[in-house]
């Protein structure tokens, strides 16, 4: 995939594969192109050339909302909640395209995953703390019944105890059969839970491997893990 902001190339021929049922971590320095890559996959970022296939089906021509219907759900950087809307409304809107009868049950499951959200279900999202907003953003995405969940820096700006909670949730999502593409500044933690990892640098993939293997690779350690 290749993508640009105006004349600035942000992705220069990136190629990656996210196997079904796995957690794939994408790590790299600030401005490397991680967010751009997720935006291209979810269809909110125009891209210049390339192909995106979901289980073999080409989706690069589909509008963003059509991709959500196919099961690609993106939790964007910086949480991005609907300030004046309640938690309950967020979860209902996460299931906007669904017509099945499982919505109430899924809402109960999200509340079970994040009990804090149940306590404050009527509260406007704008009044929540950063951690609660992150849980809400993930909960809203889960209501779309994702096959592939794109998470952009879910631990950013959270207290350490909340960071642990979020990583724990990501592992549980994997157990529930959801494929996850995880972008993280916190590269060590991300690679530690990942089946597979990619390291991106100025729009190019520079390392690929099993999560553990990348953690132990001296070249990756020196440049990206600050070890």
């Amino acid at each position: 995939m290749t993508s640009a902001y105006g004349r600035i190339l942000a992705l220069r021929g990136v190629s990656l594969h996210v196997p079904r049922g796995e957690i794939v971590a994408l790590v790299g320095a600030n401005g490397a192109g991680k967010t751009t890559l997720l935006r291209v996959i979810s269809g909110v970022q125009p891209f210049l050339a390339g192909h995106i296939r979901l289980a073999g089906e080409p989706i690069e021509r589909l509008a963003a909302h059509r991709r959500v219907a196919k099961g690609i759900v993106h939790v964007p950087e910086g949480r991005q909640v609907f300030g004046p809307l309640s938690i309950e409304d967020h979860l209902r809107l996460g299931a906007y395209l669904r017509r099945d009868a499982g919505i109430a049950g899924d809402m109960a499951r999200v509340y079970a995953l994040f009990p804090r959200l149940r306590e404050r279900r009527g509260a406007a999202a704008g009044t929540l703390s950063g951690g609660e907003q992150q849980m809400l953003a993930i909960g809203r995405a889960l209501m779309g019944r994702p096959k592939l969940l794109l998470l952009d820096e879910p631990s950013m700006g959270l207290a350490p105890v909340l960071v642990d909670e979020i990583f724990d949730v990501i592992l549980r999502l994997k157990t529930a059969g959801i494929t996850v593409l995880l972008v993280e500044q916190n590269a060590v933690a991300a690679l530690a839970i990942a089946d597979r990892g990619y390291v991106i640098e100025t729009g190019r993939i520079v390392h690929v491997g099993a999560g553990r293997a990348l953690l132990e690779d001296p070249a990756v350690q020196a440049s990206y893990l600050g070890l």
Partner: protein
Amino acid sequence: MAEFLQFCFSGLTVGSVYALVALGFTVIYNASNVVNFAQGEFVMLGGMVTVALLAASVPLPVAGVAAVFVAALVGLALHRLAIEPARGSSPVELIIITIGASIFIRGVAQVVFDKQFHKLPAFSGDAPIHMLGATILPQSLWVLGGAGAIVIGLHLFSEHTLVGKAAAATAANRLAARLAGIDTTAIVSLSFALAGAVGAVAGILITPITLTSYNAGTLLALKGFAAGMLGGMGKPLGAVLGGLLLGLAEAFGAGYVSSAYKDGIAFIVILVVLLSLPQGLLGKHSAERV
């Protein structure tokens, strides 16, 4: 006292129309942040299309419904042909586009209809109703009732339907709305159609009282804008409050001072609000934590 009541009646009647125009501004502004100065043309179209169909011996209720549909379609076309292609333009550029569109619609109306003033028959007769020494036209009751019904309808739509919530989500955060699977372009289109329909209803309700013509929309857009600014742009309740207050201010200004200044009051309101109360009466809700 009777005189005071009389001014209240006429102020609330025109005020209801300003409120509906301001609500049209609000509906579009909330979904897309566009300030649509072609809002007055929807009001004009409501009146003029009904007049034209009535002249072609279509019964009034059918003509009215058809006029609402025409205005909604014009709203859709405005979005698809003028606003959507300019996506990403600055707010000022978008305002200029809507002003251009309003001039265009007016021009077409002048050709399709004519340059005369037109009246619609009052829905339930012209016999004034006496109340505490003042009189009120049955048509005024239609205006008040119609405006009330639309306000309640819009409220129910935005609070109690999934599409209404999707519109609120689109207004709050367009990116997040797209990522939730909401077709935000369709939502904004819908808001233009809805604003067209609301404007047209206002035009149909008020034409039996005030007459209409191809350029009746210009002044109404300005007054609706003033009402919206007064109430706080983007606040449905503010739009209603601002509209009613502006109508009352005009009626009392015309009654107790001089009717020569009536149309100037809206401009004074715009100036005062801009200078002293830029967020309007209901202010900006600050539930957002950044």
